């Protein structure tokens, strides 16, 4: 029995199976993205989240409709789990007008007003000030929304990280910072870029509650995020989670991975969040073979439908090129 299994009681089984499906949905979608990239159906930069799914799954499950999400260029999973349809995500990567941004954004810039999903920011740390502002608006307007901001540990070296944490703590804003520490800023290992590698400790220096979580254990992530989101919503000020995770695939489709050992990757693959949870559920007698088959079938069916949707999509007429530079006023 794994440590994880020890925690899965009958009361938690339904949640665990739900989170397993959520992670599986992201995994299957992105495996398909990689395949489609190889077929040149998707172009540009493509950064997949494979290996890190427990983070988005565990955190986003705690949010409500009024909350806001700010993410990075590795955000397919966050968009999907926030409620953006897989078809709209895939159509976006195809550059089709049926995409969630009409093909204007692409893989790195998924946005969705309906689910308050504010991107899709491809400048490292560029989303943090935005999240601070969204939280400021909620606070000034007296709303109870929480803004969750995802970023990688590479962002910790940027000035905007420090400016944003300071502002959020100074003004006691309802924002949850989620640092997805996958140990590499593109190809630069954490120890080669930070004098202090304990990121939660560094964040705590800004006078906000910060702690580190095993980002491969979705139940641990879920529990930590639940506590943090509840605290933020109750007015306890900004919180910070360092989610220790690992990117199984290359940084992008152009990355030859010269900077890390295969053995290191293999070691982390043993902690695949999907495999870990599946085994734990099985060990606890909470996941039958039939249930596992059904989860996979659901995830696969969603991806198949998304591919069909994207394939059937159409490019935006080139005559519309200069739209959306400025807001369009109503009919004159």
């Amino acid at each position, binding site marked *: 029995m794994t440590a994880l299994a020890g925690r899965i009681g009958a009361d938690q089984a339904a949640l665990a199976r739900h989170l397993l499906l959520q992670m599986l949905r992201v995994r299957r979608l992105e495996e398909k993205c990689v395949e489609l990239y190889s077929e040149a159906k998707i172009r540009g930069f493509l950064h997949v989240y494979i290996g890190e799914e427990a983070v988005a799954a565990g955190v986003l499950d705690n949010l409500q409709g009024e909350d*806001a999400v700010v993410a990075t260029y590795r955000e397919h999973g966050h968009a999907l789990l926030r409620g953006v349809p897989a078809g709209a995500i895939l159509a976006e990567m195809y550059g089709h007008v049926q*995409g*969630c*941004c*009409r*093909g*204007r*954004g692409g893989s790195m*810039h998924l*946005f*969705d*007003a309906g689910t308050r999903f*504010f*991107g*899709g*920011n491809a*400048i490292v740390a*560029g989303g*943090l*000030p*935005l*999240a*601070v*502002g*969204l*939280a*400021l*608006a*909620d606070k*000034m*307007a007296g709303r109870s929304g929480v*803004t969750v901001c995802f970023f990688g540990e590479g962002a910790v070296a940027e*000035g*905007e990280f420090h*400016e*944003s944490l*300071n*502002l959020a703590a*100074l003004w006691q804003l309802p924002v949850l910072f989620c640092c997805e520490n996958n140990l590499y800023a593109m190809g630069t290992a954490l120890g080669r870029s930070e004098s202090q590698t304990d990121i939660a400790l560094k964040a705590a220096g800004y006078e906000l509650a910060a702690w580190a979580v095993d980002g491969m254990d979705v139940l641990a992530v879920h529990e930590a995020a639940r506590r943090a989101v509840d605290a933020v919503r109750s007015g306890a000020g900004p919180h910070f989670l360092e989610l220790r995770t690992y990117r199984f695939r290359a940084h992008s489709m152009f990355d030859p991975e010269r900077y890390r050992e295969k053995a290191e990757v293999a070691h982390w693959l043993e902690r695949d969040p999907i495999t870990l949870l599946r085994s734990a559920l099985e060990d606890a007698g909470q996941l039958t073979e039939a249930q596992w088959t059904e989860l996979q079938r659901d995830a696969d069916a969603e991806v198949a439908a998304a591919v069909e949707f994207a394939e059937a999509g159409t490019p935006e007429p080139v005559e519309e090129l200069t*739209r*959306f*530079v*400025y*807001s*369009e006023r109503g009919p004159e």
Partner: protein
Amino acid sequence: MKTTYREAIRAGIRDAMERDERVFLMGEDVGAYGGCFAVSLGLFEEFGPERIRDTPLSESGFVGAGIGAALGGMRPIVEIMTVNFSLLALDQIVNNAATLLHMSGGQFNVPLVIRMTTGAGRQLGAQHSHSLEGWYAHIPGLRILAPATLEDARGMLWTALQDPDPVLIFEHGTLYNMPGEIDDGAGPVDIDTAALRRTGKDVSLITYGGTLPAVLDAAEQLAEEGIDAEVLDLRTLRPLDDAAILASVGHTHRAVVVDEGWRSGSISAEISARITETAFYDLDAPVGRVCSAEVPLPYAKHLELAALPSAGRIVAAAREVTGKGG
């Protein structure tokens, strides 16, 4: 009533704060200090620290927070102390404010106003004397304003706040003390069109912002020499009011563009290019330009003055394109 450019801007801010509770002012020393240039003096006491919000020295952080607050339904006025410091917020302005609407396929507009001081002429040295509004006018997605009169100082802000997209307002530092009379009922003004500040038939002097006073001086001097200059105040640098520029040049057949920015790659270059692209056969002489010398602005007064557009240099340029005077 009597006012100054500074007081006119303050009246505009106060008016916006009173009209719309979503409006707030945020920036370095806007509150307890009263504003670096005393623009917001008294507003902290009047509206309180929530709405006249002092920020740490974190230009990227608070400009980005302004963008986020705008996305969240507020109508922030972000003050960046000077254009020089706005370089620390370029990522947020160029990569976020200007792009979010487009990247999101029209879903997320950013109704944000950013105000900042620009320009030289106060012996502040190279790091406090930039005129980079022309740079910002390069960026699709932004609207760039340069109020040069009391009415525009008073009235552009509210109209900018009604714009669904980001607007940058550049206030020239030498204008803050400019005194004058303003109508008691002065209010919002349009932010789309250029304005003729003087009509004439011999040459169009095209300018904006801090160089308008020097251009008007030059026009007076030219009149004494028998050169009848028209003065066009652009007011908005993006989008440019092409129709007004071409209408003026269409009847004077000569143009001098006056811009405190450096000549290379400047907004004056853009204006000159548009005139030659579309009105080449209306021209009786090549377009002239008066810009700042291509040096980081020096401290010493005589050197700084020598680097900047002056009435004398504008007069000389007008003589040259008209082939008259001197």
